[in-house]
């Protein structure tokens, strides 16, 4: 291998640039929230994606709007959320809401989504298994590039310095799907 080819290979491997592996709050755009939302939407809209999985122990009613604005752009998708219902914030009003109140609030929003036919379906599972890491992926065939781990709950991603990292390791992607199935098995749909 000549010196130039060696240079291209080595620097390319070190650089490994990906606009969706980032710390959103460090992005240069003034409107970080919209910039990152657009990048994620563009990435998912570039493929035929029918199923999207969101795993977040703190997923709450406020996140439904965010998920809708990012993934509701394309008709006929099914969103599946797995959560521990650890969210204690409902519209930032109080910190003593019961999990059942949170579940009710989300049921109302999901019913509204169904009424407006935004998604094919919007499923929320409360799992009893402990969730720690936030994940976002599509389990569809041909969508193996759409696997991400996220360092914070979605509602905090644009308020605190945290990361989004694309998972390129096939074994890890398989584990994420296994974990998703386990969470569903140890929980129930609200």
């Amino acid at each position, binding site marked *: 291998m000549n010196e130039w080819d060696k240079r291209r290979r080595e620097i390319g491997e070190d650089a490994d640039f990906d606009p969706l592996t980032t710390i959103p709050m460090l992005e240069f755009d003034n409107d970080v929230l919209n910039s990152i939302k657009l990048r994620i939407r563009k990435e998912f809209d570039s493929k035929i994606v029918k199923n999207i999985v969101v795993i977040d122990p703190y997923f709450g009613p406020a996140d439904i709007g965010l998920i*809708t604005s990012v993934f509701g*752009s394309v008709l006929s998708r099914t969103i599946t959320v797995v959560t521990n219902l650890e969210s204690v914030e409902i519209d930032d009003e109080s910190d003593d809401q019961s999990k059942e109140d949170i579940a009710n609030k989300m049921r109302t929003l999901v019913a509204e989504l169904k009424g407006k036919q935004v998604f094919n379906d919007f499923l929320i599972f409360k799992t009893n298994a402990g969730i720690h890491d936030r994940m976002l992926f599509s389990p569809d065939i041909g969508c193996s590039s759409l696997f991400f781990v996220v360092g914070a709950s979605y509602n905090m991603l644009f308020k605190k310095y945290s990361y989004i990292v694309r998972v390129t390791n096939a074994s890890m992607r398989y584990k994420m799907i296994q974990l998703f199935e386990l969470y569903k098995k140890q929980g129930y749909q609200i």
Partner: protein
Amino acid sequence: MRNRLRDYTLYLMKRNDNGKKPIKRAAKNVPSLLTRGKAVKESARSVYRTIFVCLKDRGGFKLVYGHTIEWRMGPLDYEVKIWRKHNVDADMFVFFCDLTSIDVLSAFIDKGETEITCSDGTKSTVSFRHDTNEKSTLGINSLSQEYNPFMSYFTEVERWFSTGRDFLGVPISEFHLLHKKELELVERSYGISLNEHPHLIGTFASFLPTRLRADISRHEASGKSWIEFRCVDEFDEYGNASVEIYVKNKNGDNNITVKPRLASDYNFLIPFDPDFCRVEIRYGNKPIYRSEGYFIRGIALTLNVQESKLSIAGETVDRTSQHEIMIKAKTHE
């Protein structure tokens, strides 16, 4: 992306149709692309389309990336005769000019520094460090990962670069992240993606395209399948050059090689379903064209069709429906 420069280059690809006999250029083996420029400039009008992407540093400019393209001028080509200076963003600047002589660049390579006078009257000193150079050729290969300013020309290239992996004291793999925004703006304006090709950072290149465009296509009618070969020798330089076309099927167990001359269009029958094709053209012993690729068997289109706007949970969403369309070519296997 890089296609912008390619499109621009395609725009430039016009045959010399001013009624005069095009000037022929002999193919020669000379030691350097930069010195070879001197051999042809007296018999054909070429310019050296040169661009410097620079970072302003302590009063001077450090070359982040640069190249020159030896470009034979056609009747529709424009010319930038004086250096232009463009502050892309922050400390990132771009200088560009069509040089009529290679001497400035030869001195720049030798001394590692040059002073240029821009159209606004300002003088700028651009410096460049390298410790090695290599020559190679760029064929037409859709799978290649290498940066090539041309989409349809076989190109000789000589590159000057440092064997180290640092640039201005920073690992190159991190430099492009530190200057991501500026480099994105360079790409938008000039079609050179240093984020996609970070190995170009800290390098200078000289490109010499062979002004020959070949087109190969597969046809089928009345139960027969044949391949058409067409070639445009833009300045009628390569006369009776020898062509070799190799075609094979998917498994490689059926293949055919034909050797027509460049001067005429050429068709040949194919008794199997072709999948891959390679074209090589030589003028004397010198390769002047090489392309390889697969025949298109299908095109997958994903269409996002705008449907409506929707407000939900305080968010407004533009909604689209997705459609997937596959256009398939006929096969007769």
